[in-house]
């Protein structure tokens, strides 16, 4: 098969797919085995072919998919009656804690945020398919341990957790200044800000 014909098939299949398609599955489109390297090369070429378009081919955690470029968002929205929900800060903070501290229990999240985490927040994230239970901690009550899913990575355009935005190093911006009325040793013993 000519590369052009293979790309033609890959393009149609990926445009029609409902979810990101793993490389191995794309291989099943062809009767003869093209090999992973050849397939990957074709996909890179296809991505290049689309580089000037308003739609792009991206390689996500669970595979390849076509999606509109972010700058097209306002235009695409004009044709869509449906608008997806924006999640509240409570939901996003819970998601961030699970993403960066996973696996995490509800108790871990509550400790960190200093407030209770309602069941509906967990449900919102589970319902979206962004988190799931990966086990239970061996402590009283055996609380569920939550972790982020592949869908979470896919939906945020990430290939792996390593691509999450790096955590800000903010330890330096709050310092323990000596209290005005404090005893001399408060200044003398440097505070251990963990």
């Amino acid at each position, binding site marked *: 098969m000519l590369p052009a014909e293979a790309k033609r098939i890959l393009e149609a299949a*990926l*445009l*029609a*797919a*409902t*979810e990101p398609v793993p490389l191995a599955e794309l291989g099943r489109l062809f009767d003869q085995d093209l090999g992973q390297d050849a397939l990957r090369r074709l996909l890179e070429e296809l991505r290049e072919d689309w580089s000037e378009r308003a*739609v792009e081919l991206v390689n996500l955690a669970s595979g390849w998919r*076509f*999606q*509109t*470029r*972010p700058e*097209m*968002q306002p235009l*695409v929205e004009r044709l*869509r009656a*449906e*608008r*997806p*929900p*924006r999640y509240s*800060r409570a939901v*996003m*903070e819970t*998601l*961030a*804690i699970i*993403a*960066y501290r996973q696996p995490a229990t509800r108790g871990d999240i509550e400790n960190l*945020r*200093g*407030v*209770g985490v309602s069941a509906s927040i967990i449900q*919102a994230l589970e*319902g*979206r398919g962004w988190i799931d239970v990966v086990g239970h901690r061996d402590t009283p009550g055996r609380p569920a341990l939550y972790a982020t899913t592949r869908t979470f990575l896919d*939906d*945020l*355009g*990430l290939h792996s957790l390593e691509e999450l*935005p790096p*955590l*800000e190093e*903010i*330890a330096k*911006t*709050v310092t*323990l*200044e000596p*209290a*005005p*009325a404090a*005893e001399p*040793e*408060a200044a003398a*013993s440097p*505070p*251990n*800000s*963990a």
Partner: protein
Amino acid sequence: MSGAAAPVARIYGEPLIELPADLYIPPDALEVMLEAFHGPLDLLLYLIRRQNFNILDIAMAPLTRQYLEYVEAMRSKNLELAAEYLVMAAMLMEIKSRLLLPRPPLPAEEQDPRAELVRRLLEYEQMKLAAQQLDALPQAGRDVFPISLFIERTAAERLPQVRVQDLAEAWRGLLYRACLTAHHHITREELSVREHMSRVLRRLQEHRVLEFAELFDPARGVAVLVVTLLALLELARETLIDITQSECYAPIYVRLAHAAR
């Protein structure tokens, strides 16, 4: 990155610029404040970042009074939240008192009493910023749209599966779009009334006319009787059924509103 520039609370969509210097918040704004701040850590962080408070400089008396006002206002609404604020107030007072009391020289390894609070504040701030960054990533369905073209199907159609969470998700989308929060407080009780409304209508479709009592099933308990009555009243209010009685103590008949004509 300067922490002071980080987005803070928002009230009715407007960024909250500053609190009054004495920390006093009018009682009618308390609810708004509670929605703006996500708990005591968030509020403390705000105070420190925005007002340049050193934790140690906070005058404990007004802060405590403020916290207690919160608790009072919240008592009817959300006790759990109130408890969290109260715990934080107690923690602040404990820290302050420990700093003021004369102490014997500390063993080297003993921590500054403020260290644990600061550690928690920093960890929380880090996650708060991380949440903002996650929210800023292009999100499928919100900022970027996956392409999935139509395929002409010849094979037998496979039916989509729907989970309860999918319904919740769908409603969430509706809420967001239509700002319906204020208008639709549907409780479990109301939902059971709605379920019985459908049930009554379905029975009236089969039987055209039923005697009032026939619509009730005493065997299912008092709760169901009450809900059925509420359903009938609601149906009558929405003029979906006609309830008629020819004279006092005569049988009461119920029929679909359109069948009556």
